[in-house]
């Protein structure tokens, strides 16, 4: 068995999930060489009854009742039987050669621990102009070359959860680390909450293991973006959640970390002026991020031990 595909889903949109599974059916990697773990994360209806996986020789339905992307993924990591795991969301359409390429990259780049894909968006209606600079926040980030590094300079070499390929050793180290700081489990998406530190936490464990992370052009995914995610309100909540969880996660990973405080009064005023000058809805986005930061700061200040 060369790899395990782990799909975590919670009350999925049937049309999207159908396309996700069809894309997996069309993979050129022989089905004997990979397994499919279908994790139903506390959906209202048990998905095992309605979704047929008999087309795949190594497919399993798994029900995880503890709600949240992280518990679902941890379950998948525990149940998997191969050395390479691929995390697929229920709205990710993998190109036919995705799994073949994932295995190839795993062999060709033994120094990487986690890597991701070039992600195109498929939008339910036309992308409004204000959303264009924020598409990467919605996990739409197409790349035209490969990036990798063993530290986190910016998002170029940092994979997102959609289509994340990760070595079993790194995933196991992640599970072990989470056991020592259970608060981090709360930093991931759960039901309708939009904090999302889990993807980054998972990928950053590669650095702790002495390996790198990367993003590869030849791994191609189409990410379906429904109308509901293309609103100002959704993006505000998402940005706030990401800002909040990123800082809190950094603090949990390294208790000495504290978000920087701007000491100079004049600079604070200048910042405020800059924000005030921004056009809507960009101003709301910056304000949402500031709210997330403020919440993270308050929480860190309240619990200086970081646990």
């Amino acid at each position: 068995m060369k790899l395990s595909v782990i799909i975590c889903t919670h009350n999925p949109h049937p049309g999207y999930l159908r396309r996700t599974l069809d894309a997996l059916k069309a993979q050129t990697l022989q089905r004997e060489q990979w397994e499919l773990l279908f994790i139903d994360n506390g959906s209202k209806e048990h998905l095992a009854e309605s979704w047929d996986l008999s087309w795949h020789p190594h497919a399993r339905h798994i029900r995880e009742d503890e709600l949240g992307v992280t518990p679902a993924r941890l379950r998948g990591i525990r149940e998997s039987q191969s050395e390479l795991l691929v995390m697929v969301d229920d709205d990710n359409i993998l190109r036919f050669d995705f799994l073949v390429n994932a295995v190839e990259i795993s062999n060709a780049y033994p120094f990487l621990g986690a890597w991701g894909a070039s992600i195109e968006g498929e939008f339910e209606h036309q992308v409004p102009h204000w959303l264009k600079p924020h598409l990467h926040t919605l996990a739409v980030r197409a790349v035209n070359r490969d990036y990798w590094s063993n530290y986190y300079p910016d998002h170029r070499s940092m994979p997102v959860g959609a289509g994340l390929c990760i070595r079993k050793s790194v995933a196991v180290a992640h599970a072990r680390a989470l056991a020592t700081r259970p608060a981090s489990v709360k930093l991931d998406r759960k039901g309708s909450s939009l904090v999302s530190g889990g993807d980054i936490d998972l990928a950053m464990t590669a650095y702790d293991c002495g390996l790198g992370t990367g993003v590869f052009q030849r791994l191609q995914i189409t990410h379906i973006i429904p109308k509901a995610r293309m609103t100002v309100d959704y993006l505000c909540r998402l940005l706030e959640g990401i800002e909040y969880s990123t800082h809190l996660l950094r603090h949990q990973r390294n208790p000495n970390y504290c978000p920087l405080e701007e000491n100079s009064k004049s600079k604070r005023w200048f910042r405020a002026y800059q924000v005030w000058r921004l056009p809507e809805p960009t101003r709301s986005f910056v304000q949402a991020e500031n709210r997330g930061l403020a919440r993270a700061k308050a929480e860190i200040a309240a619990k200086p031990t970081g646990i």
Partner: protein
Amino acid sequence: MPSISVAICTHNPRLDYLSRVLNSLKQQSLPYSDWELLLIDNASATPVSESVDLSWHPNARVIAEAELGIASARLRTMREFSGELLVFFDDDNVMAEDYLQRCSELFMKRPDLGAVSGCLMPEYEAQPPEWFAPYESWIAVRRITKSTWSNFLDSRSEPVTAGMCLRRSVATAFIKATTENPIMRILDRRGSSLLSGEDVAIAKTAMKLGYSVGQFAELRILHLIPKRRTIPAYLFSLYRHQCASGHLMGWVDGLGQTPIQLSWRMLLRAAYRFVRGNQISRRLVIEELRGFQLARKISRDWTDGQQGTANSKGRL
């Protein structure tokens, strides 16, 4: 194991430093048979071959490069070396005895690497001024505890030329790039000029070929720093030239088409730092502006020179 060429570029060396450098080479754990030694004498007043003895190494030679400039010396080396890997040292880099061995192991383990450098700890002849501590990187000091590598340009993984180890294919591509675009040689450091930028240019060449670059903690060098390089006048001049190099590098990337300009935003920030900052930061602001002027002047001279040659060709 890939074979290694070690190149030491020197110009009027301090002999006590140079003998320490050569001693550290003598003590390398990698057997002499696996590497060759090139000592590039870059237009020294007294030929270096008169003052050093390389007979202890079976495969060593002195190359005299008459054209002054560290870049000319490095280019000459890139043309002449015979190994698969090339390691550059300055004449003040004392390397740990496992340096070459670790280079060789690293490049064997990581075929994706194109150019790397190591951890450079300083040995100051005289303590630098206190304010200088955060700026040590100006004089090629890199106190690295954790290795960093990437396949895109980022300051944290950018290798420096002191102790840089690179692959033959990178050297070949670098020679080709500088020959095709003579504008790249504008940053050559000649004699007392302090311009630099070759490290970034080599890193960019490596990454264009698809290689990663990095700084590795296991490659250890002691960087000997003489008194004259820690006096404030030198440091400020160095900073001015580094600012100029930064502007010029952008200009070279645009092949001389993008003008070197200061934006209002940069001027405002400079003014703010000048008003609010302490004495040191004021001085740095001034040096930044002078560096800008210097870059403008160099680029203008270059353009004029080009037009001059074009005109004279036209007349012929």
